[in-house]
């Protein structure tokens, strides 16, 4: 019998026919009809009209038919909630069936039906199934709790299912344990603050025991859960590692990668002097290499992860270069990743082999791959000094092939080689100049122009070459225009006599005929410099350039540390934190590596532990253009950087170094306006980047001690309305704790006692963290001041307006109700400073319709004052730049429930009106954040 015929019934009146068949008396006919319905459903036809007829088939003892009906129910119950109720009875009955397979089927299906009325009926059967004698039923019920939590979290908590689920972690059956762990991990993710997965040495031990016994999938759930644990000291870390290492020999790659994640994370806590540390490092390499013989899709996942691992711990795979050699038949995505890792592993010891391979790749077919291979040769030259000469000659060979994109790519990288090794390889310039005409990509043109300008004194016809570009000046892209301007000024300074006309021409093109402010500004600076003091101009424009760093596309260390915590997951494939691609609150919890062992810090949970990259591994330069590069802060790199620890090379320039440094980076600046793909040129400005980051650190030190702004007390409950009790109050936030400062006044004639307070459910889960304590009875006319600590762990319900709070106060006389509005800034948490890269990515990522703009009027403060005042209320300035005289502050803040709000504050000196743009995934908070800004800035 074949089922494919069900796919082919597409007559008119089909629904009608199906209806008749579904109601047939013959079992076989019924079953046939249900199969037809499912087939139609699969191909996307709407068969919801048949709901009652299909549900009628549910009461059957034919399990196959039952399963089909259930499948239908899961798809359509939501659209027909009232009808779905008809199915409840059968479910409840099935949950009592003597056959465990049927019990499990019923509870599994019921959890998939997202209809409120059904979920109510689900609770009792689920409770029984969680304690069922059969492990198959229990493991299904464990997952069902997660399903129910997804539909109605409150219900799950109220019914106490979470506790039952926790008990299942100690179940005798390993599969039940694994599913319980999976369910709990998922629920815990949506409650970052809760202590649901209460991991302690005892429970960890149980998990490690279950690890040996459960299915491959169960092992993955358990390992992923273990990775969230922070051992209390290095000894515990080591003993967990010892019990996890056998998993590295598992046939399932996901088990291996999850084990690698646990080991990479816990290794962080082990001392490098430990013998065990070295043993562990050695054990990591073979399984990682083995992953490369898996199917291509898995290889891709493995390679993306290996890319992170070699950045974090290069020593792991340093001897394994050969396994990353590209095979002719590898899919392109595997090839590109392998190439990336080859460069990271390139060293003096293996450079000859690597170069031979790269040269081979440069003759392949795929354009992207070839370009990357050429670029890789350049990077080898910069990374391994001994190989530079060989690299250059390889590149020259490639230029001889005359393949257009190879030539262009080669020229771009040769420019970087010149930067790294000045005055060493100029002999090749002649060859490069021959190819001038074939360059049609802006990046290659800009690179060539830079070379001509830089070595103008050695190129006889430099003026002719540059002049030829000038003809189509306005058709060139910005980076070429900027580079051309600088190159001609350099040429003029070197050969003033012959090129005066040329320089005037370019200056007028740049300043008078161009709409581009960057170009105009640079033109004017040169013009002014040249006309006032040619000597100074020479010192500035021809200043010695800082050397470029060898590694340019390393992932920023804090992001890298976070990604290491996500090994094996999508985040590690995308090289982005989950918050950049996951919607809503889920998975946005920021993970970081555990700090190197220090017993005093052992109590900290992984979420709050500081990113613990040991100082020795910090990189000297902060790469300014990572994967997450946005366009927002590019211009940041232009203005001169003031602040003490400038990059050393900039300091050497002496007295004019400030200006020199600034202009120097301008010379390099075209690459910063380049599209994000341009990873290599970013290194031109790398030292500037590090200066800049110092600047950020300076600002972060300001004004963190004072608490946030506190509004004066206001009357919330007038005495008239509350039988003589008057309540006024305000909200404060100090050192991370929120409290409600109350003033109770007795304006009645009798003594008041037995005070109590309760809040209604509200948007951010505010709730009293302690009972209202009024120690002595409140006699008439007496007033007491009470500070009531608040928590945000209460139940959540969205209120209108968002920040309204309904309060009930009881005393011996009566119960009184009032409602008040709380200022949002009491919810701004102290760790709301977003990483700059993450800020950029997040800002870009939030859709524009979520952006809200506000005006803050009449605020006399300047940018510094604004920044420090906001910071004391936990609004952090992530970056600042100056655009056309306006100060732009980029700020971030985080609410207690994990919502991030990103802000751009535009301040014009002299103008008391500020423009505030807010971006947030939950746009409804913007209005209130704006009010908080107003309150903080104006008081």
């Amino acid at each position: 019998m074949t089922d494919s015929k069900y796919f082919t019934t597409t007559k008119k009146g089909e629904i009608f026919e199906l209806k008749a068949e579904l109601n047939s008396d013959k079992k076989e006919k019924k079953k046939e009809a249900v199969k037809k319905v499912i087939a139609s459903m699969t191909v996307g036809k709407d068969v919801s009209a048949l709901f009652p007829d299909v549900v009628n088939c549910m009461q059957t003892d034919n399990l196959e038919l039952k399963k089909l009906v259930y499948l239908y129910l899961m798809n359509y119950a939501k659209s027909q909630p009232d009808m779905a109720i008809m199915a409840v009875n059968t479910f409840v009955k099935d949950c009592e069936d003597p056959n465990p397979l049927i019990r499990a089927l019923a509870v599994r299906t019921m959890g998939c039906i997202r209809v409120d009325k059904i979920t109510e009926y689900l609770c009792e059967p689920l409770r029984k199934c969680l304690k069922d004698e059969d492990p198959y039923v229990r493991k299904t019920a464990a997952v069902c709790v997660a399903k129910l939590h997804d539909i109605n979290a409150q219900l799950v908590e109220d019914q106490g299912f979470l506790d039952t689920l926790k008990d299942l972690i100690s179940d005798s059956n390993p599969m039940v344990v694994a599913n319980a762990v999976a369910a709990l991990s998922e629920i815990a993710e949506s409650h970052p603050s809760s202590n649901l997965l209460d991991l302690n040495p005892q429970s960890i031990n149980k998990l490690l025991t279950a690890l040996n016994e459960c299915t491959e999938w169960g092992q993955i759930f358990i390992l992923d859960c273990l990775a969230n644990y922070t051992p209390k000291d290095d000894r515990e870390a080591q003993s967990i590692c010892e019990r996890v290492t056998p998993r590295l020999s598992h046939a399932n790659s996901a088990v291996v990668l999850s084990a690698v994640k646990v080991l990479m994370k816990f290794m962080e806590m082990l001392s490098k002097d430990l013998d065990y540390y070295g043993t562990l490092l050695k054990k990591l390499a073979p399984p990682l290499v083995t992953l490369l013989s898996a199917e291509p899709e898995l290889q891709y996942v493995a390679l993306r992860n290996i890319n992170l691992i070699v950045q974090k711990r290069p020593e792991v795979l340093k001897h394994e270069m050969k396994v990353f050699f590209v095979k002719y038949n590898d899919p392109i995505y595997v090839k590109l990743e392998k190439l990336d890792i080859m460069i990271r592993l390139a060293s003096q010891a293996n450079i000859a082999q690597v170069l031979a391979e790269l040269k081979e790749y440069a003759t392949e077919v795929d354009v992207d791959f070839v370009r990357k291979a050429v670029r890789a040769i350049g990077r080898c030259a910069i990374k391994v000094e001994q190989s530079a000469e060989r690299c250059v000659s390889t590149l020259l060979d490639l230029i001889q092939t005359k393949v257009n994109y190879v030539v262009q790519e080669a020229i771009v990288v040769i420019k970087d080689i010149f930067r790294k090794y000045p005055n060493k390889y100029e002999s090749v310039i002649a060859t490069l100049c021959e190819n001038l005409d074939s360059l049609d990509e802006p990046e290659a043109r800009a690179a060539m122009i830079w070379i001509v300008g830089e070595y103008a004194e050695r190129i006889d016809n430099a003026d002719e070459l540059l002049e030829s570009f000038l003809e189509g000046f306005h058709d060139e892209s910005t980076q070429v225009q900027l580079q051309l301007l600088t190159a001609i000024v350099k040429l003029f300074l070197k050969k003033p006599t012959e090129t005066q006309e040329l320089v005037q021409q370019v200056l007028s093109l740049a300043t008078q005929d161009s709409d581009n402010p960057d170009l105009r500004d640079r033109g004017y600076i040169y013009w002014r410099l040249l006309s006032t003091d040619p000597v100074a101009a020479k010192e500035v424009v021809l200043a010695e350039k800082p050397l470029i760093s060898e590694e340019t596309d390393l992932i920023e260390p804090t992001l890298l540390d976070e990604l290491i915590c996500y090994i094996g997951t999508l985040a590690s494939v995308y090289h982005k934190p989950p918050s950049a691609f996951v919607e809503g609150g889920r998975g946005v919890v920021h993970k970081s590596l555990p700090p190197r062992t220090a017993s005093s810090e052992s109590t900290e949970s992984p979420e709050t532990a500081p990113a613990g990259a040991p100082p020795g591994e910090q990189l000297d330069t902060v790469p300014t253009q990572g994967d997450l590069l946005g366009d927002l802060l590019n211009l940041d790199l232009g203005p001169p950087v003031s602040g003490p620890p400038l990059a050393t090379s900039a300091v050497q320039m002496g007295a004019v170094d400030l200006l020199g440094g600034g202009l120097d980076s301008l010379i390099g600046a075209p690459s910063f306006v380049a599209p994000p793909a341009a990873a290599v040129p970013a290194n031109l400005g790398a030292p500037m980047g590090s200066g800049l980051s110092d600047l950020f650190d300076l600002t972060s030190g300001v004004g963190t001690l004072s608490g946030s702004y506190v509004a004066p007390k206001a009357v919330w409950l007038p005495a008239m309305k509350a039988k003589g009790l008057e309540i006024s109050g305000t909200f404060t936030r100090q050192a991370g704790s929120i409290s409600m400062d109350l003033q109770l006044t007795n304006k009645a004639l009798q003594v008041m006692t037995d005070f109590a307070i309760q809040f209604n459910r509200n948007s951010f889960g505010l709730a009293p963290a302690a009972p209202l304590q009024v120690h002595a009875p409140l006699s008439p006319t007496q007033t007491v001041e009470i500070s009531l600590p608040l928590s945000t762990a209460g139940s959540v319900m969205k209120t209108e307006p968002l920040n309204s709070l309904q309060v009930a106060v009881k005393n011996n006389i009566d119960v009184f109700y009032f409602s008040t509005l709380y200022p949002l800034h009491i919810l701004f948490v102290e760790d709301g400073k977003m990483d700059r890269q993450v800020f950029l990515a997040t800002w870009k990522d939030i859709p524009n319709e979520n952006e809200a703009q506000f005006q803050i009027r009449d605020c006399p403060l300047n940018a510094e004052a604004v920044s420090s005042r906001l910071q004391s209320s936990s609004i952090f300035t992530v970056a600042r730049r100056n655009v056309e005289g306006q100060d732009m502050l980029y700020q971030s803040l985080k609410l207690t429930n994990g919502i991030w709000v990103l802000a751009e504050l535009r301040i014009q000196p002299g103008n008391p009106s500020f423009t505030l743009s807010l971006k947030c995934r939950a746009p409804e908070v913007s209005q209130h954040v704006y009010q908080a800004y107003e309150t903080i800035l104006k008081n």
Partner: protein
Amino acid sequence: MIGGLFIYNHKGEVLISRVYRDDIGRNAVDAFRVNVIHARQQVRSPVTNIARTSFFHVKRSNIWLAAVTKQNVNAAMVFEFLYKMCDVMAAYFGKISEENIKNNFVLIYELLDEILDFGYPQNSETGALKTFITQQGIKSQHQTKEEQSQITSQVTGQIGWRWEGIKYRRNELFLDVLESVNLLMSPQGQVLSAHVSGRVVMKSYLSGMPECKFGMNDKIVIEKQGKGTADETSKSGKQSIAIDDCTFHQCVRLSKFDSERSISFIPPDREFELMRYRTTKDIILPFRVIPLVREVGHTKLEVKVVIKSNFKPSLLAQKIEVRIPTPLNTSGVQVICMKGKAKYKASENAIVWKIKRMAGMKESQISAEIELLPTNDKKKWARPPISMNFEVPFAPSGLKVRYLKVFEPKLNYSDHDVIKWVRYIGRSGIYETRC
């Protein structure tokens, strides 16, 4: 976790669609079709992010399997699951083709309901699944209570891959050591990279719940044992091999391997893959390819290729095939070979030279003249490597099975009563020589 799973045919029509999570809508099905299946260019990544939804896909012949999610899932797990899904389907109805999927769609839905719950993979061992999901409808309504609980305890149990009560009149087992040799050689005959990836496949027909112990000439084990009798290892020369890494079927007790390096397990019934391993040292390369390419002007190429077999003369290699790539602008080819048959295949841009059998320590050669059409294409021909296929009756890594002991405590058959067969097959993996 996995939010949904779709199966498409080559045209992008949905054959199976199962949604597990509420955040995945019907439009996800179309998004994948439009952006990936119908996309003109080559697939640039097996993971695609479309509008904040991530799609993982694998292809089997012309069928696409896609898993969808909106969360930060374990990506390696998703792919492993997709492969597993393919294995399970193949075990039920053979080749994964549009016809087979349509013929078995009810079964597939049933399987998907069982092996993926709310997007979490559950027990997916075919042996266990087949006890209660069959193509002839579901058995369970007529089972006794004992049978039912036997099923559930097997599905959830510690030994999910085997069940009590298996009986054979003849206890027999077959071990296949299957290796694939991979080589990349430079035109000058320098080995750029070489490795063997091997598999030990076991087919067991054993009664009861047999405890097995597998031993091979693993260097670490031999050295450990050989400490007392040092001369034994030295006189036997290259008796042991260095294994770079190995992975095991889930029946093998990994902690025991980690501590004692012994491989002990209770095997699944019938065929399964016991282990995979990888070696890179002292590999016997069964063939050496010596290419010679000469460009005669712009319109002619002369190619000469010599192959040499490098193993015991008493052994015979089979199914030998040498593939010599030719430029795209080839107009004609003339071939002369000493042994076997050679043909120019224009559609594959290659000369294919086939030899049925060849003994060890022999040599054979082919020479060809390739006529080229004049082109003004500036781009040089990429010169893909010469590749080779073959099969040899030994393990190129040098691996030897030392023993496989069977011990069944409850039934009365001993290790000696089990009939054991061992076979070694070495095949070419990617065996390339650049020219």
